[in-house]
């Protein structure tokens, strides 16, 4: 099988997963034991509600409803949010929320990796020594503290007591770098603490295992320096797990972001989910979950691809498998 057809197959698999996810959410909404139109238009007339039922396809049964939603979704129509005074487009909401969340994720991942990589390499190199033991213990504790706890503590100390940073809100990059980052620092710290410890622990374990391999002894017998061996021969194969784990932790990160965005009032995608549930905006909920799943699945695909670049073995194994 060629590489291209392998990737096509992989993409097809992901599409199936996506379809099943969105269908599942759609089905879930139909399970609600109440009339959706009544929830969306609590004060409207029965005629208006009937119109809405036809518009959204509530009258078509689960599969018909899903197909209609899907058809609209792929054309970019993500449905509406219903207020007492009128409606707003979900896509407008998400277009506003997406960059906030994306930036938050990117900053978090970058921060986490930037701290975890040197820390992991160092503690693997000095395994069993004091520095390694101390880092391990601190990181272990950190990994067990939920991100909302860190967020709340940061708000109490840095936001309220010291009043160094604003505790609520968001400013886009166009408002100035400092403007932007002063709203981002605390959310990013809250979200990255757990990741730092996950990544460091993984990288450390992987590198310790790699350091025992024959190819490391082989590299040493060529007369290479420790630094060269560490980065060129040990870090690269170990970074594969790191990459995979970065993809896997994306899910936890998105979940964490919902809480953190609501605590810091960042109004990102996570907040939209929160808002959709609080305000019973089920169309918004369905489309937002679909967008999140799409993003998550896409990210996994990218990681899969890059694994192939980092470790040629997986490339071949997958082509063969």
């Amino acid at each position: 099988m060629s590489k291209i057809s392998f990737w096509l197959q992989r993409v097809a698999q992901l599409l199936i997963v996506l379809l099943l996810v969105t269908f599942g959410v759609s089905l879930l909404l139909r399970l609600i034991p109440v009339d959706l139109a009544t929830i969306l238009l609590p004060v409207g007339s029965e005629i208006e509600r009937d119109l809405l039922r036809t518009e959204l396809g509530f009258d078509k049964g689960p599969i018909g409803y899903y197909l209609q939603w899907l058809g609209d979704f792929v054309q970019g129509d993500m449905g509406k949010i219903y207020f007492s005074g009128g409606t707003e487009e979900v896509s407008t909401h998400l277009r506003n929320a997406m960059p906030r969340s994306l930036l938050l994720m990117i900053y978090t991942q970058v921060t986490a990796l930037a701290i975890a990589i040197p820390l992991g390499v160092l503690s693997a190199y000095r395994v069993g020594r004091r520095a390694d033991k101390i880092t391990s213990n601190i990181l272990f504790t950190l990994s067990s503290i939920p991100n909302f706890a860190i967020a709340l503590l940061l708000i109490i100390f840095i936001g309220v007591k010291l009043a160094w940073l604003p505790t609520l809100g968001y400013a886009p990059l166009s408002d100035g770098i400092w403007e932007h980052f002063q709203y981002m620092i605390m959310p990013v710290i809250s979200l990255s603490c757990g990741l730092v410890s996950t990544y460091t622990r993984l990288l450390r374990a992987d590198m310790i295992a790699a350091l025992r391999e024959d190819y490391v002894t082989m590299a040493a017998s060529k007369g290479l320096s420790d630094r060269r061996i560490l980065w060129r021969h040990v870090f690269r194969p170990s970074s594969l797990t790191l990459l995979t784990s970065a993809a896997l932790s994306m899910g936890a990160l998105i979940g964490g972001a919902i809480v953190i965005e609501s605590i810091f009032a960042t109004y990102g995608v996570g907040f939209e989910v929160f808002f959709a549930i609080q305000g019973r905006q089920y169309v918004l909920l369905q489309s937002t979950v679909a967008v999140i799943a799409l993003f998550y699945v896409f990210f996994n695909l990218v990681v899969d691809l890059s694994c192939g670049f980092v470790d040629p073995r997986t490339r071949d194994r997958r082509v063969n498998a």
Partner: protein
Amino acid sequence: MSSLLSVKGMNINFDTSRGLLEAVRNVDLEIPAGMSVGVVGESGSGKTVMCRAAMGLLQGSNVKRSGKVVFDGRELTAMSKSEVREQFGSGMAMIFQDPMTALNPVRRIGSQVSEGLRVRLGMSKKDALARSKELLELVRIPNAAAVLKLFPFQLSGGMRQRVMIAIAISCSPKLLFADEPTTALDVTVQAQILQLLRELREDLKMSMVLVTHDLGVVAGNTDYVAVMYAGEVVEFAETKKLFADMRMPYTEALLESIPTIDQKSGARLAVIAGRLPDPTDRGAGCSFAPRCKYAQDKCRNEHPELKQDPDGHLYRCWFPIGEAK
């Protein structure tokens, strides 16, 4: 004859959860320049640890070592880590048992072969790659230019072992440690690799330490043999002399117990009773005494010292074979 490498009083112990593991015990070994020396032993005999320690490649915080290693007139054990490193490549090099695990799985063959050339000889990337291609041709890899661009997993076991040999000889070492270089290979490929090593040794005037568990491999490929058991060198002699006139009961028993293609089919094999000694509990007497058919009380209670025949044949036994005659 001058020694290229001499090991004196080497002891290597590992701190383990089960207690102190005595891997290498009081080993003296001379590797004459230009010669090939076989180190034979079963698993746990300390042969691999001894070689890695001699080269200064043994790492880990739980290793305790003592003894002196002199290579090419300079004492390795007195050098700093970076000075020892200077010796690698052009002084000493090593090849390993499993070429799959000894080559970095995620780097191309070209970068792995040329790495030593660039770091140790300071070649440019282009020169180093050109030289790498020559090296691959030297170890008879067909299509060398294409192989440079491959990853280890894309090669067969025999080809990988050839790549490893190419890496080891890239800076023309004086001494090559070959640690079970053919154990992971099929018998027809093993024969090819052994032949390649013989030819390279002749062409490059290289000394070799060949570590193996296979007395057959030793017989055809070495000038001297050191037999190891339970961390000690128990016998050392010229290969021809050793096979003709062995002194250690262990060596004799080992040779007798190995099935050969010349023996009668269906014949009962001679057996060494018992099992390999526990490396954390070496006991007082001769390590082989519990399994030795000649053992007497003295063997069980007193540890034999290394004795030497006038012709240089060394052995560690109270009642060596042939002495009674």
